[in-house]
């Protein structure tokens, strides 16, 4: 590591930006695309340096953790461990006796792998967000981008977005801006993909999703259960919680069509 090559200035600038203000999906894509093994090691070094500085700055800071916040942390920890215990008990019932051996072997492999690979305190790189994955897909030559428009439905006023779809990989992302928040206990949004090879009465279900807050940009992976051979159109409807098998199409909020 001592002889580690310093990345070019433009990569270094991105690494520093990642440490100070974070990267946009596009910048992260540039970093990932241009990254070599050396850059990743350099990135870890810089992160380690920044963390050491933060620890140093904190050591001269006399302000303790506020008592009410501390109480909240303890309450949340209790809730977290309770939910964890519940999950474990369900899993232990579901898993056969051999399951524990597989889990232990997997943990051992991970531990060994981590031990061999990590010379210092290392966190795995953040998982790519759907926005980043969408950007990566968009960069591929054979990816289709289909603009979406709002219908006349009052729920859809001002909504814009697009679909990015790779037919070969059967993978795609829905991007929406301006959607209204839904109550997931009663209603959910559902994606529909119209395939040129299928009866238009039965579009392919692309999965349900929620909008947690009004207006924000969302990027949602499409989970089509049936292969789509020839994307012709795309729609988003409002359905009951959990989605439906066949939509009545009473409440279509977003539409897009390949022309």
């Amino acid at each position, binding site marked *: 590591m001592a002889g580690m090559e310093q990345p070019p200035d433009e990569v270094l600038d991105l690494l520093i930006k990642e440490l100070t203000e974070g990267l946009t999906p596009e910048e992260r894509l540039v970093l990932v695309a241009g990254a070599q093994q050396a850059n990743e090691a350099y990135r870890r070094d810089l*992160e380690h340096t920044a963390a050491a500085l933060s620890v140093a700055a904190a050591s001269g800071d006399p302000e303790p*953790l506020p008592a009410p916040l501390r109480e*909240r942390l303890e309450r949340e920890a209790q809730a*977290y*461990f309770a939910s964890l*215990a519940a999950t474990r008990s369900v899993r232990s019932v579901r898993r056969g006796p051999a399951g524990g051996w597989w889990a232990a072997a997997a943990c051992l492999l991970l531990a060994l792998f981590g031990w061999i690979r990590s*010379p210092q305190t290392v966190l795995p790189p953040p998982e790519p967000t759907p926005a980043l994955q969408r950007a990566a897909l968009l960069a591929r030559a054979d990816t289709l981008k289909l603009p979406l428009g709002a219908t006349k439905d009052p729920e859809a006023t001002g909504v814009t977005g697009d679909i990015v779809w790779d037919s070969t990989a059967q993978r795609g992302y829905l991007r929406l801006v301006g959607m209204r928040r839904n109550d997931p206990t009663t209603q959910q949004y559902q994606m529909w993909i119209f395939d040129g090879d299928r009866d238009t009465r039965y579009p392919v279900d692309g999965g349900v999703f929620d909008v947690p807050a009004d207006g924000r940009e969302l990027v949602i992976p499409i989970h089509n259960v049936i292969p789509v051979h020839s994307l012709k159109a795309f729609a988003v409807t409002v359905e009951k919680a959990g989605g439906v098998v066949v939509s009545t199409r009473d409440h279509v909020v977003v539409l897009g069509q390949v022309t």
Partner: protein
Amino acid sequence: MKGLAKSAVGRLQWVRFESIQDPGANKLTRRSMSPSVLQRIASGDQSAVRVCIDDYGALVWSIARRLSRTSADAEDAVQEIFLDLWKSAARFDASQGSEKMFIAMIARRRLIDRLRKTSAEPPMAPIEELETIAWSDPGTASQTASEAELATRALHELRPEQREVLELGLLHGLSQSEISVRLGLPLGSVKSLMRRGLIKLREYMNVDAQGVAVRS
């Protein structure tokens, strides 16, 4: 440069001596015999939660206060960070570094992520409202230095303007554009100062795969 080179010699000895002389390193020695607080949490020992908050609550709170736009933001961030810690406690490996560094890295990642998501909101507090960082005396006893002390010492080796942009960017969470406006410097100069300052810090802090500091 002279001071840096002299310190680098001390740095070579730092990791070896730390395990004998540094109180923090005594914890390391104890950790090798008994599980660390994060390892206890990972194994489901809920009593370790309080110990973890006792030991690292002030650290996380300090980092969060500086890298958040408001106190309420900082409180929310601290909750998210500790939840991250409970979930990722099993990933901590005492042989790879200190708990404090592991926790600081998790905290910083979460806080930078939050800053990026709120980057469309109004900018951070004006510079005069930023809390002054009380750096401890870098000291001279290099054999007993912790990573944080080493970082403080390295920071004091930088040019004042390099140190200032790194403090504003890395510790107060100001974007490079914000730093440019506040210091009246062209954006390119801010980038260059950060780049060179961080390279210098990194060289100073660099540790090879065996955990022994490298001469620069």
